[in-house]
């Protein structure tokens, strides 16, 4: 497969993930579509290009690990796991239903393929560090990935973990920030400014890369580059748009952080997701 074909294939998968996100949250009548859509391309590149994993053997000891620290973006991860073959796609419609393995925030005990339960923000990076330390102790040549929200970086534990990772020179760890600029109560710069975010991570001893979080090639390049950095962990700040792919969500991201689309909105969103992709090719 040529690179161009590969990229096209990833874009097609991302389109499916977006469609699932809309349908799942609409069906559940709750959930977090905005921050799931912003992470859709990142998750696509991780699960369908970068991660060494085996959907038929989720506990394969040599697998790479992915920690979804922004646990509320569960729908995009469930969509990716289903598309990858961890469980049937039709199961996605059980999101947030009583008895379902698809909990509102990811739960490692109820769903194979989830590496760490999250939901209370700020905790995933510490767990990812622990996994990176275990891999090193066991001399395993595997890689740990962790996705954080930008609003999440207001949690103090994130910076405790940032210090730990650089202190321990965890170069088998790649973290990514889904930099969609919004948190529940408003624009991040209005609520509690994070900038200069790049300088902060640098000052904490990390290699910092930037990329366009909606451009497959840009994401791939950043992930490949991160793997070559030795002696320190790497943070990729992926610039994204909250609600990406659905124009009425992109325009009013605050309305769709933790609110599901209605049936009418679902129809509109799906039509747009499919049309956008079609018009590109």
């Amino acid at each position, binding site marked *: 497969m040529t690179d161009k074909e590969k990229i096209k294939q990833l874009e097609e998968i991302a389109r499916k993930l977006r469609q699932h996100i809309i349908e799942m949250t609409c069906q559940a009548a709750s959930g977090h579509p905005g921050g799931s859509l912003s992470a859709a391309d990142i998750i696509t590149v991780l699960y369908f290009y970068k991660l060494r994993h085996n959907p038929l053997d989720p506990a394969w000891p040599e697998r790479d690990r992915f920690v979804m620290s922004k646990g509320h973006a569960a729908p995009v991860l469930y969509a990716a796991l289903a598309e990858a073959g961890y469980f049937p796609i039709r199961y996605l419609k059980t999101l947030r239903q009583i008895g379902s393995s698809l909990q509102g925030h990811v739960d490692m005990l109820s769903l194979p393929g989830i590496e*760490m339960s999250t939901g209370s923000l700020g*905790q995933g990076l*510490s767990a990812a*560090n622990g996994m990176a330390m275990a891999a090193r102790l*066991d001399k395993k040549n595997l890689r740990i990935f962790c996705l954080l929200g930008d609003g999440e970086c207001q949690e103090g534990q994130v910076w405790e973990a940032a210090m730990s990772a650089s202190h321990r020179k965890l170069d088998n760890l790649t973290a990514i920030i889904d930099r969609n600029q919004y948190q529940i109560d408003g624009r991040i710069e209005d609520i509690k400014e994070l900038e200069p975010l790049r300088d902060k991570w640098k000052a904490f001893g990390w290699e910092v890369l930037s990329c366009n979080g909606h451009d497959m090639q840009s994401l791939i390049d950043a992930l490949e580059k991160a793997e070559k950095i030795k002696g320190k962990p790497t943070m990729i700040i992926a610039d994204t748009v909250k609600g990406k792919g659905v124009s009425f969500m992109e325009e009013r991201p605050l309305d769709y952080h933790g609110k599901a689309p209605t049936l009418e909105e679902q129809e509109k969103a799906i039509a747009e997701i499919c049309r956008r992709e079609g018009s590109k090719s």
Partner: protein
Amino acid sequence: MSEKKFEASRDAYGKVLVELGKENPNIVVLDADLAVSTKTALFAKAFPERFFDMGVAEQDMIGTAAGLAACGKIVFASTFAIFGSGRAWDQVRQSVAYTRLNVKIVVTHGGITTGEDGASHQANEDIAIMRALPNMTVIVPADAIETSKVIKEAAKFYGPIYIRLSRAKTLVIHENENYEFKIGKGIVMRQGSDATIIACGIMVATALEAAEILAHEKINVRVVNLHTIKPLDKELIIACARETGAIITAEEHSIIGGLGGAVAETLIENYPVPMARIGVKDMFGESGKPEDLLVKYGLMASDIVQAVKAALARKK
């Protein structure tokens, strides 16, 4: 026992960790800048590659412990009780209890005998907030010998455990390790039929002392070492209520939500009998010598004696 022996449970912890480290290369130990005090420094010296000092960052320590455990490590994470339970409670809840990961949170400096450091460092609420967590096992060993047994059991047991140890050198009540210890099974330390004192941690020794005083007054009380607060040995508690008709709990912890709370919940639903709780009475502690604090906060054998008599007066 011929001569009284005193040892801090944290000292026993440090020693047994090194033994376990030799036996099992899968054991890793984390601390949050208190390794000298919690005694994990002994493990750090013996196995530096498997010891991680996480600095003054208890929340990060617990999260990191969860990540290590998720990759198959047996993790011991230590700090003071106040930080391991309070400062990192949400991390323990989300990353350890909810995930049912194999993390042993072994804390030292539990209770008021932490002493001179004062109220900010005296964990009197930790048993309550830890036992409220699903999947969590909560153990308070009675002395240094029991601590060795508990730590060995904890290493064999899969799942999250909170083990609360003491700073102070306290009376060793077990002669040796040749007795049966099972997580979740209380130990009858002294037989008696008039009432039962159910105690944990350093208060087991105090309860035995109280029983001795009461014996001189022809009051025969049973003493139970209820080292495991969760899962609770309900069978034993109910049997003691049925057979002795009165229950007195004694713990170096708030009377709210700890051992006394757990026993009261069991009794009220199964076999209500007159009951009294000895513990810190819904207040913060203060700086002072441990022995003076025990007097001031009502945790002496004489306090237990009074409570037993009050409960007996309410017996039909």
